[in-house]
């Protein structure tokens, strides 16, 4: 057991645990905070995968924006009575069953796939960030996708403003 493996195991356990707590916490703010923890754990995993840029992006975007947004939303939609007590609805049995079944299926597929034991190749000397930047902006690579994503974000921006704005009631 190398050090990297231990780190991985700890981080994975933490992330999974936090995730469990996200989905089971009674208090919604607690759930949001556990989400933050979970997201952070994933950022660490990105680092372990030599995707540093993604780790930072994860922290900035997910934790810095999305999680905050979620907390805002929670606060804006509080119902004190509804927010306490069990937050699990009546379908939890089905949900649990499906989740377990899915996990089992995925596990079983992994078993049958020979490529699962691919060895870790060392990275070449290229700078992955530069590579990423070039990929995103090179016209013969993923420029179009990049632009489309931008348009998507713009649409989301405008859309969410439109949806959530306060209408002056007539």
């Amino acid at each position, binding site marked *: 057991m190398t050090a990297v493996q231990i780190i991985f195991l700890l981080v994975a356990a933490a992330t999974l645990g936090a995730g469990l707590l996200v989905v089971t916490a009674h208090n919604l703010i607690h759930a949001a905070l556990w989400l933050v923890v979970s997201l952070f754990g994933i950022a660490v995993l990105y680092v372990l995968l030599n995707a540093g840029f993604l780790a930072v992006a994860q922290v900035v975007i997910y934790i810095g924006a999305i999680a905050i947004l979620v907390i805002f939303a929670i606060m804006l939609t509080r119902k004190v009575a509804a927010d306490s007590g069990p937050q699990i609805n009546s379908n939890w049995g*089905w949900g649990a069953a*499906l989740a377990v079944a899915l996990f089992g299926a995925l596990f079983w597929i992994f078993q049958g796939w020979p490529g699962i034991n691919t060895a870790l190749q060392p990275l070449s000397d290229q700078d992955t960030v530069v590579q990423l930047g070039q990929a995103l902006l090179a016209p013969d690579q993923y420029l179009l996708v990049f632009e489309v994503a931008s348009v998507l974000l713009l649409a989301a921006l405008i859309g969410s403003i439109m949806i959530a704005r306060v209408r002056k009631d007539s």
Partner: protein
Amino acid sequence: MATETLIWLLLVPPLLAFFLIVLFTNRSNRLSHIIGVGAAFLSWLGSMVVFYRAVTTEHLGEHPFTSSFNWLATGDKYLSVGLLVDPLTAVSLFFVAWTIFMIFLYSVGYHNFGQPKGDHDRPGLPPHGATVTDAHGHSHMVPSIEPMYARFFAFIGLFAFGMYLLVLSDNLVTLFVGWEIMGLCSYLLIGFWYGKESARAAMVKAFLTTRIGDMFMLLGIAYLYSFTGTMNFRDILYNQEMLNLLASTPAVGGFLGLSAAGLIGILLFFGTVGKSAQFPLHVWLPDAMEGPTPVSAMIHAATMVSAGVYMVIRFFPLLSAGMEHGHLTTAMTVLSVVGAFTALFAATIALAQNDIKRVLAYSTISQLGYMIAALGIGAYVAAAFHLITHAFFKALLFLGSGSVIHGMEHGVLHTGEHVDPQDMYNMGGLRKKMPITFWTFLIGGFALSGFPLVTAGFWSKDEILADAWGHGHYVVFGVLALAALMTAFYTMRQITLTFLGEPRTKAAEHAQETPWTMTLPLSILAIFAVGAGWVGIPEHFPGMGGLIPNWFHEFVGGTLLEHPVAVDFNFIPLLTSLVVALGGLWAGWTVYSRVKTLKTVDPLKPVLGGFYTVLKNKYYFDELYEKLFIRPAQWLSATFVSLWMDRTVIDGFLHGVAAFSLQVGSALLRYFDTPVVNGFGNQVGEGAKKLGHLLRPIQTGRIQQYMILALVSVATFSALFYYLLVYTR
């Protein structure tokens, strides 16, 4: 104008008159009789022209005037419509044209043209007089005009057309058409006054009785056509080979040993038995007196009954085919027996009749029997001769009787007495009141009795008797002589009771002579009744013979292939004829001039006793036929066919089928349609509703549940596919 065209034109006026009156001039009496009499006049004129041309043609019998056209295609042959004028036709045309014209003219006066409309007259009943108030306020009844005046002229126009067609036709088809038209018209005219129950019964009786004869005649026609392949008279009757063939071939099925000619002849003769009222189909003719008197004259003298005799005369070659050495063929024997018997039979009945028209009716039957007997013994020319003279004097007698009845009716209306104007016992002394009628009637009566030398009837009757004696048919001779005696007797009886002596009733006292439209025809016909006989004086007659050649014998004899030989003169028939005629006349006068009052019993009654009643009731033949034929026929139709077969069996069956279908239907409805079909339909709907109801809760509106459902489905299907596609390979 060519004769061939002219003979077609003879037919047109009466037919046209019929249609014009029926369609257009029905409302106007004057216009209708103008058209009717005018049509009769035109046809008369044409007939006279044709007659003149016919008699001036040499050997008309060998090349007669003919004209025909093909009418109906049958296979590769045609039925044709055509006209023929040979000697027989020419003389028949003569008497037909004259008598029809006279009758038309007579009808104007008979139906009281110019008189006012009756008080209570209705169409369908004879007119009953109108009340007329004169300047002094006196009101009395006068005869009223016939309500159905125009209709009468239309019908007799059609009747005239039928007779012309029959006389002129050159083949059996056209003849039969004319025959049937006359049958129809006799039906319509006998029942002219259809409001009377007796008239209705009489019209049906006439039609049905003649129909029986017609049926057999049609069989004969059909047999003849199938045998010879032609209906044309010239091809059958003027054709020796055809006649020989017909005589030598045995009848179909060897029927009674007859030859084809014999059987056909007898079948055709049945038509005459019906139409000319011979025994046993004589029953319709007396009842036919229900019609107006011009109709009686038309039917029983001029046209219809003469048509029957005309046809057998025409077919004499066929009837006599196979005759050897003066031996009569079977057909001829039948004719002579029936004819002679009828002559005697009808004469006996006439002795006991009191109605003036009935006497004449039976007299007609008797005289027709004479003609047929004459034909039966082979006296071709004599039969034709008697046909023509009889037409004239019988028409005269009938019209005269109509005049008498008219005069009596005038008296009845005047006095208001309710007596039967037709009963001879109510008459008497009319010679003073109605002189023209008296003298013409007397001439006619003498002609009928065969008064010697100056009447036509003498010459024709004498010729028949001479032929019978001369060819050795003594039985026929005897019977006919006896019948002649009775004829003279009852004729004189009639004349005595009607005209001679003193009036026996008030109505007879006030009788009046009839207008010129009635007396003129009587006078003209009287001329013919006297003079028509002089064209046929036998050559060897003592005194007169040879002075005028026997034109009639020469002319009419030319119709046959072989010119008939005139019989040699013999004193015995002449003597018999004289004795019979004069004796009968004298006897009738003496016996009946004793009848002075109404109360006087008929002098024949004590002499004949019970037999008198039998005669009066016409030997009860009507009652016999009623029992034998009419009742069973009525039973058959009313009970057997109508009630049992039709209503019970057929209707019962139908009702049963209907009831059964109803049962099946309702059972199907109840057990199949409603539960199964309907139920199925309902169940589909209900099932869909239930399924929908069942599936509805799936749509909860909660997305988490939708997601779960989706994922469960995905999981299931992917497992299934994985199993089927991957695992089982």
